[in-house]
């Protein structure tokens, strides 16, 4: 069967490509809206058919936007949701006593007989599945909406007064987090590395400078190491968190991580749960994208005539350079990420 994109999916892809939808949060939100629409309106008979559709659309999104992992992440969430709801309803029908399918306890892992759980026939029609799904989807939506706020709330736990914080580029989570910290704590010094060539760090600095009682220093990327000796904490955002606890973050994050490691400065990464991806990518070429080189060097300059110029967009930061993840559910060590992933997604959905 040839997979055809939905009209909404096409629109979203276009919007992201043109740059009308920016930032992980809004992309996640838009994707969630699409899946909600699929669940509500599409004529699907059973859970299996629904999962097929979700998978198909997700594959299309992934093919069109390989760098936006959040779309796949949210699709995995939906698939897990469908499985859970189906199981729940199925169990109710069959009067099964034990509930709490949500988490796999050690006891269950040991005692379970493999056949019963895996061979669930999702193609059976199930009454009330749609309503249950929509209910549950509401929960996911609220979680998404409050995720930024939930991350920010933890600012007080991690930042004390008159601290020197370094950040890189412009992440919306970091911006909100720092704003919160500035409100609660006094005499903070925030060093912003500009993150050339886009220099989005300037935007962050300008935005934070509207707050009171804070000192902002904008430095070029080259001065990160020089400044690191005075920094108390590094707080950065990330594009996505990989399965091993590593990061796919803005270009320059690797240097920041190494410099912080050199000076034993803790690196805190703000990553809401929707950025967790069950991917193992350990090398540059696997996930990196090369951006426009015009910002790096003018096309018509003499120097640019014969040089190969690269402007990569991401950096891979290995998990050993990260001290702590802060998600909307609280703090996690990088070594714990794999566990979060098993809770968040169904093992069968890791490959879409």
């Amino acid at each position, binding site marked *: 069967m040839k997979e055809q994109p939905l009209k909404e999916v096409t629109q979203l892809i276009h919007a992201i490509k043109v740059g009308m939808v920016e930032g992980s949060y809004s992309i996640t939100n838009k994707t969630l809206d699409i899946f909600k629409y699929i669940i509500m309106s599409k004529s699907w008979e059973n859970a299996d058919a629904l999962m097929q559709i979700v998978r198909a659309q997700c594959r299309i999104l992934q093919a069109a936007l390989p760098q936006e992992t959040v779309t796949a992440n949210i699709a995995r969430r939906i698939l897990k949701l469908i499985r859970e709801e189906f199981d729940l309803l199925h169990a109710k029908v069959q009067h099964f006593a034990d509930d709490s399918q949500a988490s796999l306890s050690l006891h269950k892992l040991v005692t379970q007989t493999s056949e019963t759980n895996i061979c669930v026939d999702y193609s059976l029609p199930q009454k009330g599945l749609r309503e249950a799904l929509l209910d549950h989807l509401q929960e996911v939506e609220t979680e998404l909406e409050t995720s930024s706020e939930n991350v920010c709330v933890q600012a007080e736990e991690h930042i004390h007064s008159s601290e020197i914080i370094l950040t890189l580029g412009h992440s919306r989570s970091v911006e909100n987090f720092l704003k919160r910290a500035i409100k609660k704590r006094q005499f903070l*010094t925030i060093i912003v590395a*500009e*993150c*050339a*060539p886009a*220099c989005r760090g*300037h*935007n962050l*600095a*300008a935005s934070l*400078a509207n*707050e*009171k009682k*804070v*000192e*902002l*220093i*904008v*430095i*070029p*990327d*080259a*001065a*990160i*190491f*020089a*400044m690191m*000796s*005075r920094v108390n904490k590094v707080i950065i955002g990330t594009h996505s968190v990989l399965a091993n606890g590593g990061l796919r973050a803005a*270009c*320059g994050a*690797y*240097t920041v991580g*190494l*410099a912080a490691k*050199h000076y034993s400065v803790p690196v805190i990464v703000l990553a809401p749960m929707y950025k967790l991806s069950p991917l193992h990518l350990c090398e*540059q070429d696997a996930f*990196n994208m090369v951006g426009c080189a015009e910002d*790096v*060097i003018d096309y018509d*300059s*003499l*120097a*640019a*005539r*014969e*040089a*190969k*110029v*690269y*402007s*990569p967009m991401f*950096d*891979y930061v290995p998990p050993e350079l990260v001290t702590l993840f802060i998600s909307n559910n609280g703090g996690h060590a990088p070594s714990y990420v794999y566990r979060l992933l098993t809770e968040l997604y169904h093992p069968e959905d890791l490959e879409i």
Partner: protein
Amino acid sequence: MGCCHQSCFWYQVSRRLRIKVKSPSSQDEKTREEIIAAREAKKISKLGKKQKSTLAAPSTEPGPAPASLTGTTIITEVEQTTITTKLTRTTTTSGCKKNVVEKQGAVAPTPIATVKSLPGIPGDESGVSEKSRDQIKAEREAKKAAKQAAKANKSTEKITQQLGEVTLDGANSVPGKATVKATSLATAPTEQKKPVTKAERRAVQEAQRAAKAQAQVQGKSSQSQGISLNASKSKLNTTSTPPRETELSPSKASSPSKSPQAIGNNTPKSEGRVKLFNHLLTADKDASLFINDAQVHPSIARLGVQYAQRTVVGSNARCIAFLHALRQVVNDFETPAKKEFGRSLDAAVKHHVDHLHKCRPLAVSVFNAYKQFKNQLTQLPTDKPETELKELLGHFIDTYIENQIGKAAQAISSFLQEKITDGDVLLTFGCSSLIHFICEEAKRRLVNFRVIVIDSRPNCEGQEMLRRLHVHGIPCSYVLINAVGYVMPEATKVLLGAHALLANGYVMARTGTAQVALVAHAHNVPVLVCCETHKFSERFQTDAIVYNELSDPNQLVRNEKCCLNNWQTNSRLTPLNLNYDITPPELVSAVVTEVAILPCTSVPVILRIKPDIGY
């Protein structure tokens, strides 16, 4: 040990020589008599005019004036003594303080004239110093006589003379000055008589200056100087402070605030904003620094502007430019009467170096060169005529450039040629003349290699490197510093230039060098720092913040639309543009010097044997 012994011996010799120096001073009886005679003549002529000069003088205090004059050395001894004798005379006879002030003001401009006229006098050799000195004296007398006539409008004259130095057509600037000095308007009419002779003299001076400027090595940079001089001129007009006054009176707090735009210099205006870097904020480089100072040789003044505007950058380039300027100073130097050549030159050079330091903190290479030069001065033989000594010093400067920079680069290059083989991918950061030289050499040997140039905002010196490497047809890649992790896996060697090597093995270099070394270390790519031994410093430093330099923070603002565009209006926002950073020795595999390929920690060893290298 042998070397140590030798240096000890030299020291003793020099000491002995110095002791000797003092004895021949008694033989100068004749010349002193001559001088005294000349002085008497001057005094008589001056006293005659003294009664006229009751006009409002520039508000200089008598206190600091003699100090500043005696502190400088290009003014000849003769003049100094005349000033002081005049001072005593006037105070005893008339007791009028104003007159004293007037006198100082009157005498002060003459050194400028002498400095200017120096290059124009070819027969200025010390062998015939008696005669030439007399000539000069005669000239001076003539000038002074001319000046006496126009003593009434002394202040305006002074200004015009200063302006004449700055601009080609001093006549244009006269009206502006006249209006500024409205208080002494009575002088304006008399001024009309003067400009003829003044203009002539100015024209001569300008011609000399132009000739000199052409002879200068950096032809291109003279443009920038012209601009800055124009800027300083406009500054002069707006603030209406005669340069003499800016030099003497301490109440100059008002001018710095306006100056940065005028000169386009690098003074951060946000004093004390970033508390961490308060100690790095340099003194304001206001216009008075760049206006022709009577005691600063034009070549040094030009170099100062070039340093401040960063037209001459890079450790080696700064050092070479300094030595060339120094040679001019030595050639044009005139030993004051009854003074030893070496010592008075030492003092003069010290003043010049101080001036350069004010323009931009001295590079380690420049400081070392200066130290060696000073060392050389103390070892000068005293029994030789001045011309020969000057030749000796010129020879020293030439050999220093040749050995410490030229031959050192060749030696380093030959060391590294063994390390560069076919298929190598060299990674380098920014622009380094030495690394460019090495790459050029490797290309000449037909080695098949390519170069990755890492660059960083805001200076983007790597583009210059890229351009130079293209000339030799070396294939290049180019990335910004935050993408260094992206290209590092390809690299087989990292070659870095350095500003200085500190005694504890830390490498001081352009900001970003440490970061490149850090990433290379993480990828197990060998990091080779190329550094001549003349850049070795005896300082110890463990971080980049204690001793550093701040550049213009406005360089970080990208364009008009940039969010940082109006950062000055927001007191909480500060762009910070550090110049150097410090690479710890554990990130550096080896340092390549002209002596050997060494670990960083061997710097103190080199520093100990250093005085015997080269010359």
